């Protein structure tokens, strides 16, 4: 620990507030003084942000004596995953700066910053600039950035655990490697409250050389243990579903008693459903608001402001409020449904009681019987301080492509220097030169085996042998497409009314939630040029937010659904908007859309397996859940920690196979794809499958009891079967599409107009098919394959599971469905089904046609 003394001005400031500098804050100052990179791990409320900035403030206080005419130079770059977080931190920093009367210029720069301000920032930089990874990537792709960063002393990366495991983290790591060339003296600080892989993150933070290098780890003292309760409802606990609707009365009661509650849910659909359900109970007229990423920005800003000013009683929210922005004096966090990971739970817990000396309080509301086990597992993990979290992985090649192109768009660069630079970034430390060269060639000509694009090169070598963009247009277009966040295709949801009056918006009755809090005024209506498909002209009202296009495509006019806290009637799609009206239905016809599901973390899955197999641990569970497990024990068998239980049984004229790997929905879906392929080959005629977090059900027309389960579940399914299946997998196509967009093969934005995302989706699928057939070794296919293995398909996790249960497959033939199988079977019809489903769907529809004959037959 450090015995460093704070400069007197700072010591006085701490004293005036009745504070003392915390040891970890002093250690951060010491590390910065030595030019060391440091990873600060401290709980929320532990003075983490100040710990990151104190070294900069002390430095700048020394130079700031030069008076108002002092030329400002960029001293500190702060990077966070959220624009809103940068804005919030800037505001918080102003307090010590103002109170110590420091002459320090602090500014933010995000996607929303106007061009004039950006230009001014480049000419006259602030001392401290707060920004996002995408903005750093933009700098790297711009001329003269080297000079801009020339005086940089310090880089602070906030919520580093959230960035590092993602492609955004890959992009940031490459940007940091570039900064290390431009400002070799700048030291780095990483800030986080929830780090699962400390060593990995300490390495991620610091430049790599011949041998692995690690940042110093600085630890804040831990606060009191959080108080976590699990809501054990007196109502009937459902078998499946994720809404926790049965417990809503108890949730409402808890909100009523608390000062300000954050009600976290895992998906936007759940947010909508929970918001509706709470308002149905809201006899007291509590100010309950809604906040999620699809809502219009103004609406979110208003909710945040209302929270900060103490006008709200509760906010139903998704992960948009996970990260360290503190809008109000939250004293209770309610998690609807299982938290899916202990790190996520701790992160959300940190939103309540932002004072280190008081425990934060949380109430978990399991949505179904199985989630009771998950919640118990999560509570135990938090009590033991065990964190899971996304594992760090090797850097993605599509991101590397984006960075290489970006660097060549900024300044001419030699391939040798660039290779040395990118391999300093920890995710790319193991990158082979040959692979780097292939990616560089991809950036330049597309890197195709059919060498046809020499004359269309995007990157060229100048007379000095340095790589640069072919022309200003290439560079401009690259800069418009920087970033790694590929949103699902979204359509705006716009309130509308028929042009000639008739059935205007219904006014809200008692117990009806307001559309937002506070209510927004209606924008001036305007009439769109055309209304697609339907001849009635509709007047456009205000935009409520955005919804995934695929969800809207399932709807036919007249369908009702919940969005932005209201029940809406779908009228049709026009241009890039879905036109809706307010509905008087009390229940929406289309219940939900299932975006943004988190998979159960491997760590929690393991704990759940342990609880499930051991009746001694069931005492904490409600009777209904205990009875369910006991019944399973009697009728079938309990899954053991290291085996795989496989049940077969007939039901409703079909034969089912249900297995319980506990590896999360994604891995189970992949397993389902592979099993059905094998069963087809065995002529077992599988007809479909459905997965949930802990089980997979496959059904077909033949009894599956006689199948050799060891052979069926053998690891070798991850070889040829996987390759063959991937060829057609829509998940693989989606992964490829992301790679194509991130790598710059497909540009989303052009000067002047934006390509609609539907066009991108469609052509990316076609490109995938063509590339796979004619250039199967292409670097982008390899990139997509690697992504799929760790991402949407979770092949890595599936592989580990299959290895674990090898030789321990316990199959049991039952006369009827087992208690444990009920929840996954209830998912049928609710979850998308896979495999042959598309073909069967067509055949069924065509059958229907044969019955009532085509009009023109």
């Amino acid at each position: 620990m450090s015995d460093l003394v704070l400069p007197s001005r700072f010591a006085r400031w701490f004293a005036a507030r009745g504070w003392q500098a915390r040891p970890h804050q002093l250690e951060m100052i010491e590390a910065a003084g030595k030019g060391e990179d440091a990873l600060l791990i401290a709980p929320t409320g532990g003075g983490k942000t100040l710990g990151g900035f104190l070294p900069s403030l002390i430095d700048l206080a020394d130079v700031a004596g030069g008076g108002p005419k002092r030329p400002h130079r960029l001293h500190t770059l702060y990077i966070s995953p959220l624009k809103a977080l940068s804005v919030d931190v800037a505001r918080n920093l102003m307090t010590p700066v103002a109170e110590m009367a420091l002459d320090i210029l602090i500014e933010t720069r995000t996607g929303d910053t106007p061009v004039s301000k950006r230009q001014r920032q480049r000419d006259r930089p602030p001392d401290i600039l707060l920004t996002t990874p995408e903005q750093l990537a933009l700098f790297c792709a711009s001329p003269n950035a080297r000079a801009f960063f020339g005086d940089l002393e310090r880089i602070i990366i906030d919520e580093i655990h959230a960035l590092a495991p993602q492609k955004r983290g890959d992009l940031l790591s490459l940007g940091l490697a570039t900064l290390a060339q431009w400002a070799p003296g700048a030291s780095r600080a990483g800030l986080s409250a929830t780090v699962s892989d400390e060593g990995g993150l300490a390495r991620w933070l610091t430049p790599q050389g011949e041998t692995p290098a690690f940042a110093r780890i600085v630890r804040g003292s831990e606060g009191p243990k959080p108080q976590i309760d699990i809501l054990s409802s007196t109502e009937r606990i459902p078998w499946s579903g994720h809404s926790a609707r049965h417990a809503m009365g108890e949730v409402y009661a808890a909100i009523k008693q608390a000062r300000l509650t954050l009600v976290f849910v895992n998906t936007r659909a759940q947010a909508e459903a929970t918001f509706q359900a709470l308002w149905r109970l809201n006899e007291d007229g509590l100010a309950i608001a809604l906040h999620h990423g699809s809502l219009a920005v103004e609406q979110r800003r208003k909710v945040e402001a209302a929270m900060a000013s103490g006008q709200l009683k509760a906010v139903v929210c998704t992960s948009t409020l996970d990260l360290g922005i503190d809008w109000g004096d939250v004293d209770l966090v309610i998690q609807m449904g299982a938290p899916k990971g202990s790190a996520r739970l701790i992160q959300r817990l940190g939103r309540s009681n932002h004072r280190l000396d008081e425990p934060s309080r949380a109430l978990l509301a399991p949505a179904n019987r199985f989630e009771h086990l998950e919640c118990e597992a999560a509570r135990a993990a938090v009590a033991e301080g065990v964190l899971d979290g996304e594992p760090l992985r090797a850097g993605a090649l599509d991101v590397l492509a984006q960075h290489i192109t970006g660097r060549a768009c900024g300044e001419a660069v030699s391939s040798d220097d660039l290779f040395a630079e990118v391999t300093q970034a920890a995710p790319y430390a193991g990158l082979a030169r040959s692979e780097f060269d292939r990616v560089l060639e991809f950036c330049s000509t597309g890197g195709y085996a059919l060498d046809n694009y020499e004359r269309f090169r995007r990157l060229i070598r100048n007379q000095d042998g340095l790589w640069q963009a072919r022309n200003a247009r290439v560079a401009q277009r690259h800069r418009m497409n920087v970033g790694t966040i590929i949103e699902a295709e979204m359509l705006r949801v716009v309130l509308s009314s028929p042009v000639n009056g008739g059935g205007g918006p219904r006014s809200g009755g008692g117990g009806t939630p307001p559309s937002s809090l506070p209510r927004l005024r209606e924008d001036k209506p305007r009439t769109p040029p055309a209304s697609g498909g339907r001849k009635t002209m509709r007047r456009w009202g205000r935009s409520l937010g955005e919804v995934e296009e695929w969800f809207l495509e399932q709807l036919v006019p007249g369908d009702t659904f919940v969005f932005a806290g209201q029940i809406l009637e779908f009228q049709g799609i026009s241009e890039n908007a879905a036109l809706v009206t307010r509905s008087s239905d009390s229940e929406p016809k289309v219940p939900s859309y299932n975006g943004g599901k988190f998979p159960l973390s491997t760590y929690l899955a393991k704990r759940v397996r342990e609880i499930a197999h051991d009746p001694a641990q069931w005492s904490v569970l409600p009777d209904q859940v205990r009875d369910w497990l006991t019944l399973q024990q009697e009728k079938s068998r309990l899954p053991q920690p290291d085996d795989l239980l496989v049940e077969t049984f007939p039901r409703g004229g079909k034969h089912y196979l249900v297995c319980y790997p506990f590896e999360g929905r994604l891995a189970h879906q992949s397993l389902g794809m592979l099993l059905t392929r094998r069963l087809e080959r065995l002529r077992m005629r599988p007809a479909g499958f459905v997965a949930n977090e802990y089980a997979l059900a496959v059904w077909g027309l033949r009894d599956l009891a006689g199948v050799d389960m060891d052979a069926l579940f053998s690891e070798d399914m991850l070889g040829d079967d996987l390759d063959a299946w991937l060829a057609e997998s829509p998940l693989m196509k989606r992964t490829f599409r992301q790679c194509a967009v991130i790598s710059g093969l497909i540009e989303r934005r052009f000067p002047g107009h934006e390509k609609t995302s539907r066009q991108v989706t469609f052509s990316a699928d076609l490109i995938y098919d063509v590339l796979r057939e004619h250039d199967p070794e292409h670097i982008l296919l390899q990139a997509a394959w690697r992504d799929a293995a760790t991402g949407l398909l979770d092949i890595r996790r599936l592989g580990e599971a299959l290895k674990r249960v090898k030789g321990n497959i316990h199959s049991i033939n039952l006369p009827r469905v087992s208690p444990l199988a009920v929840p996954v079977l209830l998912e049928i019809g609710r979850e998308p089904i896979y495999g042959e489903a598309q073909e069967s769907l067509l055949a069924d529809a065509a059958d229907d046609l044969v019955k009532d004959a085509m009009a023109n037959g």
Partner: protein
Amino acid sequence: MAEAAKKIEEPVCRVNGVTVVPHLSGALYVPEFSALLVADLHLEKGSAFAAGGQLLPPYDTRKTIARLSEAITACGAQTVIALGDSFHDRDADHRIHDEDAETLAGLVRSVADWIWIEGNHDPEPPARFGGRTVPELALGGLMLRHEPSAEDAPGEICGHLHPAAKVAGRGRRLRCFATDGTRMILPAFGAYAGGLSVRDAAILSVFGRCPDAWVLGRDAVYPIPAKRISG
């Protein structure tokens, strides 16, 4: 699992009384004239994008030609009629790879008659690949052209609109033949050509309603009535 996705007993498709056979490749075979109709090949679309700065894989032309060649063989067609937009743009001829150019010329020579109908992307298809060029063509009771006409046109078969349909439920949108029994729009045949919902205003206005669709599945072409089409 072929049983699950059982094929329809060769349903008959007629346009204005003429029997036609929607082929799984996206081509339409007219047995009476031993003619194979294809629309919107969009050859060299990939390289057109490359010239514009997006380096799409340069294999679309060879894939499209190969599929067309297979369809000709499978149907035993003597005549091939390309319903316009066969080439993505006027410069396609200058960008096409030599190998692909030879394959295409060979394919044109391999049939008795090859007719290019003019499209909006290729008002003057290049002459060097052979075949003859016409603005439109009458074939028995059928009228073949690139763009659908605005007024009633019984027997018209065209391309241009790239129809695609999705069966109500959770499926994906797939390319299809769109028809009301008196006229028909062919799906785009080109490897990089996209699709437009048959419920889009542009297609609705051709038929005055949502047309029925012969949807290109993985294993077969499925006739789907309009009421089962969601988008």
